[in-house]
């Protein structure tokens, strides 16, 4: 229980720093706060500027699976999602009833224009298309900043809360997440070192603090088994000897080959060898296979972050 208070202060500061202003009508400042309902708009500050967005927009398209996860868990209807093999928790969106607005990386402009959405939400993978999409409909870029993942995730969630008039609900969820972060931190303090490894086609990549899976070290406080220099979002190619030599107490494995078959099956076959079996993590049965879709595809969403934290927490208290 190190400093949940500090975290909350940070969260509050982040929220207040977010200049969100609700105003009645578009330029009609004189009318003041209009009653909630159709036609009300607010200005959303996001990664690529500020955009006028109507409150509780009806037709929402999102390219970001984290945002989709958040909206899904807030009970907001999302009308358009990218064409992708979605993780189990979001598999319902693969149905025909939802407009397919392109791939995870490339928008299908015609489908989007035809659907006439009220709001388009993009993020890192589709950030480059901001200008084109803005011409079709109000577009906001809710990328999570890799350098300050949790604060940024809270900003994004709060923004979503404002747009969809669920601020209280979001605040509650964030408080709950703070609590589980504090919980995991307390466990991490006694759990020794950890190493995050991604397996792909029999080869290994290690991820350190500040990487795309940095949450484990940066936020949950698992002590890194090795000082792996952060190289953007990508990891460092390593050998089995590297794992043997760093000898982590906990091994967190993300299986990139699990697109077909069970998550972790391919990875456990790769890791079952004498070098890895000689580590403390293997000896104490501390090899955790993290859900690839949850960590690799969805990332920061209100429901998913809870799941990610609890998977690490389970591994630490195992």
């Amino acid at each position: 229980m190190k400093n949940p208070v500090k975290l909350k202060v940070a969260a509050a500061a982040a929220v207040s720093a977010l200049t969100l202003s609700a105003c009645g009508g578009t330029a009609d400042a004189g009318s003041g706060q209009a009653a909630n309902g159709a036609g009300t708009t607010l200005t959303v500050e996001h990664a690529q500027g500020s955009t006028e967005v109507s409150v509780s927009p009806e037709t929402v398209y999102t390219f970001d699976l984290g945002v989709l996860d958040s909206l899904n868990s807030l009970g907001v209807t999302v009308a358009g999602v990218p064409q992708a093999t979605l993780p189990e928790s979001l598999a319902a969106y693969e149905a025909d009833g939802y407009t397919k607005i392109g791939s995870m990386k490339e928008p299908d402009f015609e489908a989007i224009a035809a659907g006439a959405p009220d709001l388009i939400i993009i993020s890192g993978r589709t950030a480059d298309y901001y200008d084109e999409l803005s011409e079709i409909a109000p577009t906001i870029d809710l990328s999570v900043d890799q350098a300050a993942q949790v604060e940024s995730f809270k900003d994004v969630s709060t923004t979503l809360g404002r747009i969809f008039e669920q601020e209280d609900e979001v605040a509650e969820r964030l408080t709950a997440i703070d609590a589980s972060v504090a919980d995991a931190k307390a466990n991490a303090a006694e759990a020794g070192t950890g190493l995050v490894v991604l397996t792909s086609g029999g080869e290994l990549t290690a991820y350190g603090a500040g990487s795309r899976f940095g949450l484990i070290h940066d936020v949950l406080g698992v002590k890194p088994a090795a000082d792996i220099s952060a190289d953007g979002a990508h990891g460092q190619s390593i050998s089995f000897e590297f794992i043997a030599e760093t000898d982590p107490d906990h091994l967190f494995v993300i299986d990139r080959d699990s697109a077909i078959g069970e998550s972790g099956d391919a990875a456990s076959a790769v890791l079952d060898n004498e070098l890895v079996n000689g580590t403390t993590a293997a000896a104490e049965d501390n090899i955790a296979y993290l859900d690839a879709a949850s960590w690799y595809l969805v990332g920061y969403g209100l429901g998913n972050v809870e799941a990610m934290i609890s998977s690490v927490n389970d591994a630490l208290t195992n």
Partner: protein
Amino acid sequence: MITATPPAEAGSATARRRFPALHAVLAVLAVVALSVASLFIGVSDVSPAALLSDSDDGTAGRILLISRIPRTLAILLTGMAVGVAGLILQLMARNKFVEPSTVGTVESAMLGILVVTVLVPAAPLLAKMGVAAVFAVAGTALFLLVLRRIPLRNTLIVPLVGIMLGGIIGAVTTFCAYRFDLLQSLNSWMIGDFSGVIAGRYEFLWLVGALTAAGYFAADRFTVAGMGSEFTTNLGLNYRAVMSLGLVIVSLISAVVVVTVGAVPFLGLVVPNLVSILIGDNVRRSVPWVALLGAGLVLLCDVLGRLIRFPYEIPVGTVLSVVGAAGFLYLLLRSRRRVA
């Protein structure tokens, strides 16, 4: 069969032969030195001192057996085999600018692995290799068939046909991988990497070693078969049998290498050409050189990849692309100078 070197030529051949004799010793020594270096370079502390000291609890020796020796052997076997496979394909296609990864062999093997992975994800490695090999044979055979239909076998048309065929097969592969969310896995097959090699993960490469030996003994036949079916039959050889043998050797080598370490680019192109410049075109004589140079080049690139970002690694495929591209450019510029 006719003996390789007619005795009448002995006089003029001695001068040429003395050159390889000295250089052969040097080249073998260089590869041995690189192999020893490869045994002692890595994350864990394995040095001659650590191996001999009593204080060590045997860890160094264990690492040597589990990780270093298998890796070094895998590199040597791969380097030899991929170089020789390139040479054989060049003989069969009668063109010095083709290699398994530019005519569709490697692309077909990848398509094969992909198909198995999608249909039977739990298939054992041997099954994956088998299917990859069948696809590789089909892809290479298609290339050779197309080649036979082309009336004017222009030096440039042949590699172009190969690149086009490879491109089509590669496009199909990429599309399937995209639809099944396997693009990332495909990527790891496309870039050769020995970082995952440990005892128990490379043994199939011995098969590749055996195929290389077979390639050596049949080397002259491939040259003859490259001259066409009538020419081959006139010399009393079974054209179809020889072509099939070559096809199987090249395809099996490509499939096994792709499945165990991933694609090794440029090697099959650069090494045979380099050898042909150095010692000429006597095939029987150039096979050992191709094997030696191939092994040495892959060793060098893998050691470099291990050192550049120590303790992390750069895949050998990436290093080889840089070194191989530079080598190929050198060959092109050199040949132009000779013409001009």
